[in-house]
């Protein structure tokens, strides 16, 4: 099996460094959860104050685009999961291909999201900007829409980071340069990150798109 780690400064051996890397990633993900947790808390609070607001807001979102994106993201996670298994068996080319598919899924998600934003822009839903007045008369529902933008933009930023990360790994895995191959660990950790971004969406989608009276 190739792809051994290069042991960096404070570590005594590969095992130790690998364990530390894993743990660092988990701690980081814990902190990310708290970040999105704040937004969910805000959404929850608005909902408690104005039980009708989520319905009104959801009616203005493009549920089909949202559903398509959910499916796409779930698929991408599948490919990432497969890649992390394959790469540990040393099949770097396959792993690279799987990651590339995941990256394509990610890009597709971002494109659809872009289209969605554009429609919403034209509808006047964006806070502060747009060609016409917002169709939403109801202030609390507008709040949910505002939170929708903040949370999905934040999510999209995270996803873009993931796309760059997986894309880079996918290219590096193909390189034959044995000096600095990305180790399986790196792939697994990037995969963890991707799954988290995915899970965040799995929570955002029902909270934002699905409420019905």
């Amino acid at each position, binding site marked *: 099996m190739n792809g051994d780690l290069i042991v960096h400064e404070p570590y005594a051996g590969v095992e130790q460094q690998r364990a530390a890397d894993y*743990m660092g990633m988990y*701690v980081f993900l814990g902190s*990310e959860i708290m970040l999105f947790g*704040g937004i969910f808390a*805000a959404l929850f*609070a*608005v909902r408690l104050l104005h039980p009708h607001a989520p319905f009104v807001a959801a009616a203005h979102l493009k549920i089909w685009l949202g559903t398509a994106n959910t499916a796409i993201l779930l698929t991408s996670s599948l490919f990432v999961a497969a890649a992390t298994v394959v790469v540990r068996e040393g099949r770097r080319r396959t792993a690279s291909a799987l990651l590339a598919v995941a990256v394509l899924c990610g890009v597709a998600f971002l494109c659809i999201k872009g289209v969605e934003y554009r429609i919403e822009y034209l509808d006047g839903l964006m806070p502060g900007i747009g060609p016409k007045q917002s169709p939403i008369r109801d202030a609390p529902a*507008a*709040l949910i829409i505002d939170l929708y933008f903040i949370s999905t933009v934040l999510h999209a930023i995270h996803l873009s980071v993931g796309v760059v990360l997986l894309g880079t790994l996918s290219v590096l895995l193909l390189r034959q340069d044995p000096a600095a191959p990305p180790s399986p660990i790196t792939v697994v950790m990037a995969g963890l990150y991707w799954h988290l971004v995915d899970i965040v969406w799995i929570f955002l989608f029902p909270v934002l798109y699905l409420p019905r009276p």
Partner: protein
Amino acid sequence: MTTAPWVNAETPEEKVSYLRAGHTLRSWLFSTDHKRIAILYLLAISFFFLIGGLAAAAIRLELISPTGVFLSNEGYNRAFSMHGIIMVWFFLIPSIPNTFGNFLIPLMIGARDLAFPKLNLLSWYIYVIGGCFTLYVLIMGGVDTGWTFYTPLSSIYANGHVVAVVAAVFIVGFSSILTGLNFIVTVHKLRAPGMTWGRLPLFVWSHYATSLVLVLATPVLAITLVLLAAERLFGLGVFNPALGGDPLLFQNLFWFYSHPAVYIMLLPGVGVVSELVAAAAHKRVFGYWFVAYSSIAIAVIGFLVWGHHMFVAGQSPYASAIFSFLSLVVAVPSAIKIYNWTATLYKGSISLDPPFLYAMGFIGLFVIGGLTGLMLAMLAIDVHVTDTYFVVAHFHYIMVGGTVTAFFGALHFWWPKITGRLYPLAWGRVAALLIFIGFNFTFFPQFILGYLGMPRRYHIYPPEFQTLHVMSSAGASILGLGYLFPLVYLLWSLRNGKPAGPNPWDAKGLEWTTPSPPPKHNFEQIPVVTEEAYAYPPLGEDST
């Protein structure tokens, strides 16, 4: 000159120390050595302490007269807002963890560095970028929201540079998160062979607890600030009642971070004091496990009491009652620490060198601050004294009397390790005494002021309060002077101090087994730990 101008005589240890491993500016600014990064932090936070202190001086000067002295209403509001913001996020939160924690955790657990050295350097740069934003705001005229940024004042009505200062705090938050992450992983994964959890110095335990809070609470602040900035920039309305939002939601989110954050500011100081007390008494800390776990308990329960800042804010009285009760619960682990430290002194061999004077100062002042915190947690009392100087006195007793004192204690204790030089002990004792006296002079009158009904954030105040305010300002000048002393003799010692030798206090702990200053990679060989922390030889002749 070929050598650095601030060091003349070179001991053999110094020749190979981390201080000598490169002389260029580059070798400092791009170093991933945790010890050098600690020094970078020390310089940066000292700078911000000075700025925050100057703002404090402006506040105290202004309050000498009930009609104000030299500031406009707006100017005063900006002074205390910048004072609070700088002191909390740019001085106190990073103070002990990022300097002493950074320097000592690897040394104490027998590691060559933190788990992610580059991340450590990155976190310093993030801190500096955040700091630049703050300086920008300061130069542009500051902000007038208080450090608490309550909406809708901050989102709609305030005139200052709210978005820029929010950006500064947002950015510096990431520096905190990275540091916390680094510490957690380091403590888990880089302990030397034989360094079990039960052998960790209490300093490491309390930094571990601090890091948990840093990593889990700071992101909530980050997202809250994003919502606030969006509110100010794009007119979002999550916190705006006119748009159906709720200003109390902001307060809930803010305190959900900020109450745990007060323990971020306290716990590292507690860790320092545990080390100092053990070294002072030359004795193992009484009830090691209780002290260790009480830090974790504080970190966990600390997440459940945020509502005690909102007793009169309009939250449900039932919620208030629950938060009040939990605030009493969170005091129990603090009580455990205090009593254990006292018990540690029993039958010790107590040294009264400067670090230990600071430690005792910490205990006394923290107790007063903590007990007045318990008074604030009592609903009927808080209704009267919330948002008065009673609260101001409470938190200065803990944050300045407690943590800043612990910071100075740590500085005096590990200075010989960090620089390899001893400072004049007599001057150290004088400074400790001056700071203690000045501190009480400044802040004790504020308890009385608060109970009399003097609201905080007032610079025009009822004339009957003047005497106490003048006392407080007089005390502040003694305090300021006290803080200047160490600056002078510590810098003097760099050039003229006697070489310290590896263990000037005859203390236990891996950091004292290395030369002073330690070499670049800390240990020639990773040590193997075979004994508990604080394994001082028994003091009584025939104890078994």
